[in-house]
C-alpha cells in the first residue's frame, strides 16, 4: 500500500511539471514573442482593434470637418469631406496624409490602451485635430488652380501658421479608399496626384531665389539697394555665359532695379562675389534646403555641390535660381516669411490644437523661431526692394489699391516645357500678416501664370487675418 502511495506521489510530479511548462510557455507567447506576433502580417487584430475606436475628426481652424468618422458594419470608418481641396491633408485609406502621421492622436493611442485608461477617459473616442488651415482660402485655391498643376501656400509670417497648403491636381480620397479601380487609376496617373506639390514638389526656383541672393549680399555688406551694378545683356561670368531677360541689357542699374526687373546678370555677379563659403552659410541660415518639421512628408531641397573656390559656374547659376537648384514651394514661402518678419526664420506649423473628448484643448507649440538668417536692416531693405517689384517691376499685377503688397516673380527654366511660374508675396507691406507663394507648373511667366492666383489668395487672406 505504501509502495502504491509512493508511486502515485512520484507520478504526480509529471503533471505538476506539465503545468509549470504551460505557465512558462504562456509567458513566452504573451510576453517574449508578443511584439513579433502582434506585427505579423497575417495578424489583423490591430486593424480590427482600431475599427472599434471612434477616431477623432480633422477640422480646419474655422471648424469645417474635413475628415469625419461613421460607424459601419465593420466598425468605425473614415468619411471624407465632399470637396477634394483637402485630399493632401487628409490622405486616403489611413495610409497617407495626416491620417497616417497623426493616427496616434486620432485614435488617442487607444488601440491597445489599458481598460482602466478607457474607463478614466470615458470610452474609445479619439482626439479631434484642428488645423491652422483656413477652409475658405483652401477652397479658393482649389477653385483658382483648376486645370493647373502646382502649389498654393498661404502662411502667417508672425507665427508660421499655414493658412493654405494646397497642391494640384487633387484626387477623390473617398473613392481611392473605397474602390480598387479608382486606386489603380490614381497611382498610375502620370500627373502624380498623390504628391503634395507644396511640400514634396522639387522645382527650380528661378528668379524668386534672387530674394535670397539679394539678402545675402546686403547682409554680407557687399551690396545695398542703391549699389550700382552693370548688365550688358549677355556676359561671361566665371566661365559660364549668362543671358539677361532683356537681350540688350540693362546697362547701369541699382540692385533694387535689378530685383524689380529681375536681371540675371546682376545677381550672377553678386553670387560670384559672395563666393561659395558665404553663399552656403546663408543657405544654411535661411534653412532653405531643410525639410519642414510638419506632420506630412516634406522633401529636402537640393543644390549643386560647389566647392570652396571662387568663380564656380554652378554657384553663378544658383545665384539667380537656376542650375541644379531644386526647392519646394514651402521653402520659398518660408524665405518670403523670413523677409516679411524682419530676418528671423519661422517654423511653419499645420496643427493648431488638439481637442480631447473631455473638451480640454491641448496646446501645440506655435511660432517657433529657428534662428536669425539676416539682420533686421537687411530684411527691411530686401522688403523694400520687393515692394519696388510691385510698384515698378515685374510684379505689377499685385499693385493694388488699398493693400500694399511686396512680391517677387519667377519664371523657372525647366526641362519639361514652358517655364514654371512662381509668385511669392506678402502683405500688408508695413506689418505683414500673410505670405502667399504660388507655383504653377509650366505656367509661363510668374506675373501672368501665378500672379493673379497669388493676389487673389493674398487679398482674401489679409481680409480674414486680424491685425495684431
Amino acid at each position, binding site marked *: *500500500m505504501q*509502495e*502504491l*502511495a*509512493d*508511486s*502515485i*506521489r512520484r*507520478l*504526480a510530479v509529471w*503533471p*505538476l511539471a*506539465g*503545468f509549470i*511548462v*504551460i*505557465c512558462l*510557455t*504562456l*509567458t513566452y*507567447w*504573451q*510576453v517574449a*514573442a*508578443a*511584439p*513579433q*506576433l*502582434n506585427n*505579423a502580417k*497575417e*495578424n*489583423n*487584430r490591430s486593424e*480590427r*482593434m482600431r475599427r*472599434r475606436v471612434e477616431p477623432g475628426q480633422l477640422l480646419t481652424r474655422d471648424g469645417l470637418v474635413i475628415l469625419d468618422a461613421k460607424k459601419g458594419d465593420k466598425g468605425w470608418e473614415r468619411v471624407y469631406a465632399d470637396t477634394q481641396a483637402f485630399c493632401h491633408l487628409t490622405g486616403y485609406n489611413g495610409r497617407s496624409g495626416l491620417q497616417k502621421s497623426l493616427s496616434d492622436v486620432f485614435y488617442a493611442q487607444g488601440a*491597445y490602451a*489599458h*481598460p482602466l485608461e*478607457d474607463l478614466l477617459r470615458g470610452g474609445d473616442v479619439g482626439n479631434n485635430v484642428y488645423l491652422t488651415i483656413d477652409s475658405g482660402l483652401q477652397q479658393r485655391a482649389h477653385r483658382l488652380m483648376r486645370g493647373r498643376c502646382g502649389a498654393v501656400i498661404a502662411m502667417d509670417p508672425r507665427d508660421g501658421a499655414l493658412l493654405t497648403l494646397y497642391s494640384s491636381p487633387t484626387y477623390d480620397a473617398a473613392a481611392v479608399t473605397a474602390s480598387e479601380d479608382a486606386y489603380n487609376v490614381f497611382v498610375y496617373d502620370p500627373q502624380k496626384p498623390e504628391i503634395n506639390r507644396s511640400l514634396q514638389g522639387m522645382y527650380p526656383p528661378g528668379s524668386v531665389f534672387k530674394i535670397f541672393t539679394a539678402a545675402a549680399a546686403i547682409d554680407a555688406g557687399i551690396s545695398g539697394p542703391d549699389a550700382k551694378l552693370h548688365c550688358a545683356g549677355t556676359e561671361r561670368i566665371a566661365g559660364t555665359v549668362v543671358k539677361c531677360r532683356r537681350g540688350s541689357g540693362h546697362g547701369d542699374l541699382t540692385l533694387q532695379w535689378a530685383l524689380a526687373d529681375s536681371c540675371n546678370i546682376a545677381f550672377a555677379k553678386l553670387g560670384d562675389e559672395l563666393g561659395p563659403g558665404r553663399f552656403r552659410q546663408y543657405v544654411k541660415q535661411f534653412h532653405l534646403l531643410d525639410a519642414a518639421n510638419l506632420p506630412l512628408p516634406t522633401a529636402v531641397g537640393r543644390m549643386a555641390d560647389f566647392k570652396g573656390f571662387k568663380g564656380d559656374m554652378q554657384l553663378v547659376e544658383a545665384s539667380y535660381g537656376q542650375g541644379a537648384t531644386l526647392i519646394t514651394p514651402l521653402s520659398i514661402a518660408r524665405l518670403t516669411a523670413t523677409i516679411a518678419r524682419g530676418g528671423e526664420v519661422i517654423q511653419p506649423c499645420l496643427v493648431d490644437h488638439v481637442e480631447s473628448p473631455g473638451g480640454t484643448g491641448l496646446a501645440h507649440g506655435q511660432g517657433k523661431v529657428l534662428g536669425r538668417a539676416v539682420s533686421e536692416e537687411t530684411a527691411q531693405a530686401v522688403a523694400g526692394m520687393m515692394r519696388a517689384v510691385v510698384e515698378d517691376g515685374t510684379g505689377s499685377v499685385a499693385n493694388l489699391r488699398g493693400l500694399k503688397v511686396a512680391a517677387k516673380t519667377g519664371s523657372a527654366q525647366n526641362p519639361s516645357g514652358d517655364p514654371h511660374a512662381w509668385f511669392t508675396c506678402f502683405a500688408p507691406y508695413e506689418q505683414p500678416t500673410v505670405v502667399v507663394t504660388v507655383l504653377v507648373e509650366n505656367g509661363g511667366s510668374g506675373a501672368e501664370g501665378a500672379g493673379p492666383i497669388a493676389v487673389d489668395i493674398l487679398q482674401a487672406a489679409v481680409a480674414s487675418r486680424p491685425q495684431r
Partner: protein
Amino acid sequence: MALGLALVCLQQEQSLVRLLRVLTVAGSFIVAALLTQVDSEDRDHLLLPAVSLIAGIGVVFLWRLNPEFASRQIIWMLMGSALMILVYYLVDDVRDLGRYKYTAGIGAVLLMVATMIWGQEKGGARLWLNIADIVSFQPGELAKILMCLFLAGYVADKGDLIRSQSRDSDLLASAALRHMGPLLLVVAFSLAVFVLLRDLGAAMLFFGLFVAVSYLASGRKRYAVVMLVLFAAGTVAAYYSFPHVSRRMQAWLIPDADPYGTGHQILQVLFGLAAGGIGGVGFGKGFPDSLPAAETDAILAVIAEEVGLLGAVGLMLLFLFVAYRTFAIAWQSKDRFGALLAANLGIVFALQTLVIAGGLLRLIPLTGITLPFVSYGGSSVVVNFIALGLVLTVSRDCRPAIGRRAVPRATDNDARERLPERFVAGNGAAPSR
C-alpha cells in the same frame, strides 16, 4: 463566484432573468457543498470550491462569447452537479465499485464501438452519438470514466502480481506480461478506435492514462519508457500513413505555411495570446470571433487574450490545485482501489488540461479536446462532474483512519441493498452500520 457573475451581469446590462439563472448555478454549488458537508469529517473540502470557481470562470467567458452558450452550459452544470451529488450518495462505499471493473471496461469498449457504427460526424471527427434524435452526446467522455474504473479495479486486483513478477531481470517479464495482457488489449483497442474516429486528443489521453497505470501497476519505469518509445514510433507511422495526421502535424510545425488554411487556428490562437500580453485586453474586448472553436477547444486562448497572462496563469494554478488535491486524495487513500481510481481520474483531468493547453500553446499538435469544466459542451461538463463526485467519494471512504470510516468494510454486504436504508437515514446522514 456568484458575486463575480452578478458583477458581469451588471456590467453587460443583461436581463434580470439571466442574473437569476446565474444565481441558481451559484446556489446549486452552495447546496452541493452543504449536502456533502453533512458527513464532512473525512471528505475533501477544497476540491468542490476550486472546481466551482473554475466552472464559474468558464460560464462567465461563455456568456461573454454568447449568452446562449452560457445558458445551456448552466443547465448542463446543474445536471452534472445533480449527478455528482447522486454519485456521492448512491455509492455507499466507493470500494464496492471495484467489483464492476469488467462491466465498466466492457461498457467503455461498447460505447466506442457504438460510436464507430452509429456515430455522427461533427467537425471532422465522429464523436457524437444520437439517442432517438433527442440527446446527442460524446460517448468518448463517458468511456474515460469507465476506463478509469476498469483500470483501477484491475490493477487493484492484479497489481501485486504484476509488481512482484516485474522485478525479474528480463525487460518484459513474461509472467508480468500475462497479467498486463488484458490491460494492453483493452487499451490498444480503445486507442485504435479513437485513431479510427480521428479523435486524436482522446487517443493521447487514453495512451497517457495507460502509461501512467502501467507504472502504478508495476512500480517500474521501464514499461512507461517502452510505451513512450512505441508512441513516438506510432506517431511517426501515423504521420506518414494518415493524411489528416500529417496535415495536423504540419499545422503544428509550420503554421505559417498555410496561414489561412490548416495553420489558421493555431496562428489566430497565438495572435490572441500575444494581444493579451500580461494584463489582457480587457474582458469583452478581445476578438474571439477570430478563433475557430473559441467556445470549446480554444476557450483558454480567449481567456488568455482578455485577462492576459495573469488571468491565464491564475486559471492554470486552479487546475493545478484540483489535480494536486486529487493526487493527494489518491496517495492518502487507505484502499488500493480508491487510490488507483482517484489517481486515474487525476491523470485524466491533468492530462486533458495539459493536452489542450499544450496544443493551444503550440507545445504539441492541436487536437480537439475540451478544457475540463470550462469548455462549452454537455457531455464533457456532465462527465467531469461525475468524475468529481467519484473523487469526493474516494476522499470520503478511503481517507486515513480518523473516525468511523476506518472500520473494516463489511464485504458480505451488497451496496445496493443498503441504498434505501441510507436515504431513509435522512439527507445523507451517516448510515448506521
